[in-house]
């Protein structure tokens, strides 16, 4: 028989409870293997909460999420083309509570005390944890671009699906034919590497069909297209000639908000619709909790557990982490981090061994028209010598060409991954 540490620990805690226990609090806590608090209910946090309950039904899980509903950022560029409504990309959190027994607190985590192991909420209440999972996504940093207003109805980012997505769609609709839509892209890493290029395609598709004299100007701080370069370049040249113009090495230095002018190193570009994707950093709660330890922006983690390299008993997931090379900040990746982390958290709370050969995969679909799609895919395995994730040789690639078939798969991907995290 193999020695079961889990059973041993359970037996031990039961006997401790018996010895120490007349009328004391252990009676109520002895039924749970531990308390987990998850901050953030996006692709990473919601998936982690659900999988911890699936794999560790004896663990208490509380999910703290500001918003009443989940709105998917992936697929939301299609709202800009007018082919999808935001409500089609929106799902509720109800099943996490009803089906999986997760306590969902629609509240905001405002502070984390990593010594006392508790999370303070905006409502004033406090949640104690044995293991904390922080999945705050990115914060956009408009303050890093001089002249860019922190809040503006005119210069939108629309880099978090929601009201700004709808507002940007309205700006594009109101823009006269012959106008210029300029999209600025920050230096990588940023959330969703192919996202800006897909957005350019979606706006170009709308212009081609409704405002053919208009232009899409991509002002990219990077020296080249960051993701699916060949396929995007082909899409712009063949589908949107005279509409899309791509300018590399075009870092946004300053914005003149009054005239919607993007000031680059060597030129000024005036737009009719100026869409600035600002530089990004792990969400503020991660900064405040001392979890950011890479480039002053991202949270370093152990890829076997996603436990923070800076703070014990705290795990970080999704866009907020300092990912291994070639691991994009994508919803799909976040969903995958979450399951490795969930397995590890369950094992740790049960006193079991954590998995030593985790795998994570990625598939990012991008719409290049209303229906046709290209993808990039990869599988990453753990390298124990380097303590990092690496693409398995041969296990990566992009579409041979854009297709409607992949368009159908992209829509199905959404339905399935939202179910994987929320249903």
């Amino acid at each position, binding site marked *: 028989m*193999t020695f079961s540490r889990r059973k041993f620990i359970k037996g031990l805690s039961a006997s401790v409870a018996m010895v120490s226990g007349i009328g004391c609090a252990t009676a109520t806590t002895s039924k749970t293997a531990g308390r987990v608090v998850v901050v953030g209910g996006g692709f990473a946090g919601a998936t982690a909460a659900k999988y911890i309950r699936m794999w560790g039904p004896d663990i208490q899980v509380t999910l703290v999420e500001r918003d009443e509903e989940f709105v998917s950022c992936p697929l939301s560029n299609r709202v800009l083309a007018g082919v999808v409504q935001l409500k089609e990309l929106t799902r509720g959190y109800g099943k996490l509570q009803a089906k999986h027994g997760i306590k969902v607190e629609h509240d905001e985590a405002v502070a984390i005390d990593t010594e006392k192991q508790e999370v303070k909420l905006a409502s004033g209440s406090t949640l104690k944890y044995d293991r904390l999972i922080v999945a705050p996504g990115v914060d956009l940093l408009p303050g890093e671009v001089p002249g860019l207003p922190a809040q503006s109805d005119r210069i939108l980012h629309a880099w978090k699906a929601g009201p700004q997505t709808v507002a940007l769609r309205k700006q594009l609709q109101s823009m006269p034919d012959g106008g210029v839509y300029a999209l600025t892209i920050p230096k990588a890493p940023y959330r969703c590497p192919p996202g800006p290029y897909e957005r350019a395609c979606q706006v170009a598709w709308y212009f081609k069909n409704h405002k053919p004299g208009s232009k899409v100007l991509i002002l990219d701080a990077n020296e080249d297209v960051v993701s699916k370069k060949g396929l995007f370049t082909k899409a712009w040249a063949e589908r949107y000639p005279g509409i899309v113009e791509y300018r590399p090495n075009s870092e946004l230095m300053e914005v003149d908000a009054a005239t919607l002018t993007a000031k680059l190193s060597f030129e000024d570009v005036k737009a009719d619709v100026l869409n600035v994707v600002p530089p990004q950093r792990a969400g503020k709660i991660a900064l405040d909790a001392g979890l950011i330890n890479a480039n002053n922006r991202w949270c370093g983690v152990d890829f076997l557990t996603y436990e923070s390299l800076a703070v014990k008993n705290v795990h970080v997931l999704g866009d907020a982490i300092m990912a291994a090379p070639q691991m994009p900040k994508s919803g799909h990746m976040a969903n995958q981090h979450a399951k490795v982390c969930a*397995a590890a958290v369950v094992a740790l709370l049960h006193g079991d061994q954590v998995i030593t050969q985790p795998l994570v995969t990625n598939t990012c679909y991008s719409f290049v028209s209303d229906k046709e799609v290209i993808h990039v895919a990869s599988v*990453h395995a753990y390298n124990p010598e380097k303590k990092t994730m690496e693409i398995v040789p041969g296990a990566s690639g992009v579409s041979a060409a854009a297709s409607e078939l992949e368009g159908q798969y992209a829509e199905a991907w959404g339905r399935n991954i939202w179910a994987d995290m929320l249903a």
Partner: protein
Amino acid sequence: MLLAGMAVPISAAEDANGRSWAATCTGCHGPNGHSEGGMPNLAGLQKAYIVNAMREFKAGTRQATVMHQHAKGYTDEQVERIAEFFAAQKLD
């Protein structure tokens, strides 16, 4: 020997591995392989069917959009465990 011919029970650690590796599929194929539609359902498929399909994806002999790329990311052992996991899932 007494053990010869007996089914070898999967240890807890191996089971956790299989479950964890199978979870890499469910972002696209749905919770525990129960597809929401538009992607092949994996839950309840026969183990041999999944193993064979993955072998063909890897070899490039089966039609694919992404699976020929994904399949190369898994060892034979991992595919076996994943296939066992999905084969054991009950159809709704």
